[in-house]
């Protein structure tokens, strides 16, 4: 990271602490904001946040490593979480899983080489009556069928990157 970039990032973290507070209870909101914008919480970010809140950086790391929506390594622009819980299993999640792997060319737990997609399992997302369900970032898709997978992926590509055709999508951050 360039020095100027690093300074800008530090200022950003200071602003977040000013917004959410400098006490320990502000830790998760700050981390969530960093995750949202940068899609990872880097060791540098953890160090600065620890200083701001007056805790040891390891404390921050222990929190980041605990929550499955916080990552200490970069992930794709779009994180796809397919629900692996029982109702979605009964509804046929396995075929969706296979199709996602086929269309993305990666396995679960991996990120596409272009950094666009990360594929993960998610636990129950409260769409049990409309399974199989999956989350793409904050957006939820229900009653997914294998042939919908390619369209959903294309929708994501269309909203981000060089070939984006529209960018008003709110789930792209």
């Amino acid at each position, binding site marked *: 990271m360039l020095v100027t970039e690093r300074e800008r990032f530090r200022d950003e973290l200071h602003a977040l602490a000013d917004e959410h507070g400098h*006490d*320990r*209870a*502000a*830790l*998760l*909101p700050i*981390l*969530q904001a960093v*995750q949202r914008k940068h899609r990872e919480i880097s060791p540098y970010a953890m160090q600065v946040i620890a200083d701001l*809140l007056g805790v040891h950086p390891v404390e921050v790391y*222990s*929190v980041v490593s*605990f*929550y*499955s*929506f*916080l990552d200490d390594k970069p992930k794709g622009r779009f994180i796809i979480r397919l629900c*692996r*819980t*029982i*109702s979605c*299993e*009964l509804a046929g999640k396995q075929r969706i899983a296979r199709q996602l792997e086929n269309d993305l060319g990666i396995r679960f737990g991996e990120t596409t080489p272009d950094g666009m997609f990360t594929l993960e399992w*998610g*636990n*129950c*997302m*409260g*769409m*049990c*009556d*409309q*399974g199989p369900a999956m*989350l793409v970032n*904050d*957006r*939820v898709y229900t009653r997914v069928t294998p042939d919908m997978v390619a369209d959903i992926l294309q929708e994501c590509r269309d909203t981000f990157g060089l070939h984006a055709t529209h960018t008003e999508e709110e*789930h792209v951050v």
Partner: protein
Amino acid sequence: MKAAHEGPLTFTKMEPNAGLSAALAISRAEVIAEVSKSGLKGRGGAGFPVGVKWNLAGAAKSDRKYVVCNADEGEPGTFKDRVILSDYADLVFEGMTIGGYAIGAQHGIVYLRGEYTYLRAQLEATLARRREEKLLGKNILGKKDFDFDIEIRMGSGAYICGEETALIESLEGYRGEPRNRPPFPVDTGFIRQPTTVNNVETLAWAACILAKGADWFKGFGTEKSTGLKLFSISGDCDRPGVYEFPMGITVADLLKEVGGEDAKGVQIGGASGHCVASSDFGRTIAYEDISTGGSVIVFGPERDMLDVAENFLEFFVEESCGQCTPCREGNPKLLEGVRMLKEGRCSMAYLKELLALGETMQLASKCGLGQSSPNAFLSIVENFRDEIMGRTPVQVN
């Protein structure tokens, strides 16, 4: 959403803020007395009497108290809170405000699970509107010295944070690991202050009770499980969705309503609940019989119950916070055991050891997650024993 009887759900029929107005017209003690009289118990699944909780928090001495709404709906097969938050958020906020008045709190916090981030903007807009309408903020509805406001805090994908002390740890910026109890949150909760943690549905019912009276609520359900309850129905049935039923409904009646009469088993209470076989469909869903937070997952006649047990145990292996040994080490052992059963490599002696391990986990785990994690496995082994032993391994791919 569908009601048990013809017609709309109770929540739809409620007059906005009737409960809050009624509460502010009487004393704090009278509000708590009314909730106690209704017999309302926690709708998240644990079934703790709401009146008792509010009374303890109300009696605790502190000038800062908190009302927390547990919207970390993570139990597999549960989605009623999502529907309530989408369609009846006002009722939940009304219930929180009533709770704030009853216990003498100024601060409300909704702990919304990360998976429901898409609901947040809408909820914030509802809160903003309520502030404009003087339903939140200073001197609510002209009541002198009653100030109360609500903020939304997000979870980050941890099932365990639905446990109330883990939720509080998470709010304080720590790993979501459950605390030892006592002390209970009602005296030592968020930042060591008296705190009530109530489920989304519980708060909505509290608002209904204040509006319509405890006697109206007690008119439904059984003596020990009063009132109505929302159920999240999924799995192998014709009409899945959210339903409103009185407590004490039999499993068979429920299955008839949702079109799942041919089920061979029903998981009641989500992954941490029990699997009920068809011979027990005459039992009732109530705190004194089969207790539940409202999750009902129907398994059709073709389902392999070991697949079901495997799915639940994979869930617990992943979601165990890792703090206490019985839960952290026990769940992987049970999962391994289910896989041995699936492959037909499990002796009866070893199965008995697994059952004993399950019972140990129920006794020795620190929190509700660990204590209830073996339930599904134990009940499936008990109820479907003839289909799980002596299997021939299936060649996969």
